[in-house]
């Protein structure tokens, strides 16, 4: 099995597991971090150390990090929380058609509550220009939500150019940075983003753990979406999961160290894969290659049907679209938004690379894909070489 689905999830870094284990052992620091006794304080110290580690990768303060159960929750909290705080009726949100489902679904839900949402259509390369965003603003616009790196096509949006423009106009800016963290440098001291979502399991940390960055200066204000004991400054209640948090902290610390070298190596492998696949005629790369994240390559194959294509590659763990939408077997809405027709949107593979990916795997994967696409094309009554 060749695993090329690192954008769906990554294995835990073995060093991360070592950090987590003490909190999972019966004689370790297993206490509730909210408990006011010795073992509780020890667990709390772990939580605070990890908070600082996550903040460090983002150029943030520890006190700006709120723990969540994953980026789905972070995105829900950021968008719903901001809107609830500012009042949902008639509030306007600007986002794009190629956001992750959890942003789009949250926006759709808010529309049922009286909010107005503009879903910007990106250009053919997947980019939403800062000018497009500014044009969409209205006096009622409370929030812009745009992802840093698209999870299906790897396009890097110009959030660094957009952020100061929104700050000037007093509009809150939320960024889904799930696929950017650990892949691209992020420095929130420089980039005036107000809310930023990250997830642990996309960068070799544990699944089911995420965080939301909530800027302190100027203060981004949110209504909590999970009510309870008032954990996390009242922004997110629920018992903190020490082992998960420690793991996320460790993963972010490792990502900070490896950022530059990982990015260089992965983009090299990505380019090699694309170069090898071009042995096939009539294939299309999805997403502007000039603004590509290091770890994602998305390709459409003319003349083959998508489900058969994936089934024909059982030794290749790749996905079409995101893990979330692949269950529905529908052609990717992201590729559709880029203007690909249904057939091409469906007959696409997202290769996503990670620390475990080797050159040999890239070669083998390319070989298999070429062979099977040729076979399916030959099998097709419609294919005319």
């Amino acid at each position, binding site marked *: 099995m060749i695993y090329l689905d690192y954008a769906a999830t990554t294995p835990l870094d073995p060093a991360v597991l070592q950090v987590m284990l003490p909190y999972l052992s019966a004689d370790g620091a297993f206490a509730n971090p909210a408990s006011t006794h010795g073992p509780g304080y020890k667990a709390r110290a772990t939580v605070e150390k990890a908070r600082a580690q996550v903040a460090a990768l983002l150029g943030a303060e520890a006190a700006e990090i709120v723990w969540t159960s994953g980026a789905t929750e972070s995105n829900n909290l950021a968008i719903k929380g901001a809107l609830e705080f500012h009042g949902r009726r008639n509030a306007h949100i600007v986002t794009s058609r190629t956001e992750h489902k959890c942003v789009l679904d949250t926006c759709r839900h808010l529309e049922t509550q009286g909010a107005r949402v503009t879903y910007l259509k990106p250009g053919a390369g997947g980019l939403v220009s800062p000018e497009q965003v500014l044009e969409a603003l209205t006096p009622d616009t409370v929030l812009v939500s745009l992802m840093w790196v698209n999870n299906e096509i790897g396009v890097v949006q110009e959030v660094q150019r957009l952020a100061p423009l929104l700050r000037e106009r007093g509009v809150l800016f939320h960024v889904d940075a799930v696929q950017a963290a650990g892949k691209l440098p992020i420095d929130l001291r420089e980039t005036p983003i107000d809310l930023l979502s990250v997830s642990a399991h996309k960068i070799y940390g544990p699944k089911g753990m995420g965080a939301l960055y909530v800027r302190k200066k100027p203060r981004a204000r949110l209504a909590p979406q999970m009510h309870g004991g008032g954990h996390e400054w009242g922004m997110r209640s629920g018992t903190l999961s020490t082992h998960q948090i420690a793991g996320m902290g460790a993963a972010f610390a490792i990502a900070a160290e490896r950022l530059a070298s990982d990015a260089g190596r992965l983009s090299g492998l990505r380019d090699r894969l694309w170069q090898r696949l071009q042995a096939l005629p009539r294939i299309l790369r999805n997403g502007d290659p000039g603004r590509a994240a290091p770890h994602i390559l998305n390709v459409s194959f003319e003349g083959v049907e998508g489900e*058969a294509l994936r*089934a024909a590659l*059982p030794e290749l763990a790749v996905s079409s679209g995101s893990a979330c939408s692949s269950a529905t077997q529908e052609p990717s809405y992201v590729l559709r938004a880029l203007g690909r027709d*249904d057939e091409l949107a469906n007959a696409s593979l997202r290769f996503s690379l990670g620390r475990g990916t080797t050159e040999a795997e890239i070669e083998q994967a390319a070989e298999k894909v070429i062979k099977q696409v040729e076979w399916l094309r030959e099998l*097709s*009554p*419609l294919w005319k070489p």
Partner: protein
Amino acid sequence: METVTATDANPFGYAESIWRLFLETPHAGEFAPGTPGVVTGEAGSKAARSVLRLQLRFEQGRVADVRYKAYGCPNSIAVGAWIVDWCLGKTPAELASLRAADLRAALEIADDRAHCALLGEDALQAALAAIAPSKNRVNS
């Protein structure tokens, strides 16, 4: 959640019969143009993302050789492979009896893929329709 019975060899959990025919695609291909005694039946559309083309070569009133081509999901591809194999040795009258329900039963096609079985029935009916006007020629 629906039950998934995936194994390493068949990681997507297709019914075994479908998975095997999809991987092996026996009789895939087409007859050389002008091969005598061949009738062709096609069903489906590109827009619906499945097209099945069956070719049956008759000799003395019976199917002597077969080919198929398919564009579509593994179920459609397996349906093509299964039908042509089933056709071997049969007369047009015998062929006419095949129904989508038989295909579904034989290949364990799931409810949400019933259209793949229909595709097979339609393609075979199209081939049979292609026989009719030239029946005498085929039988000769």
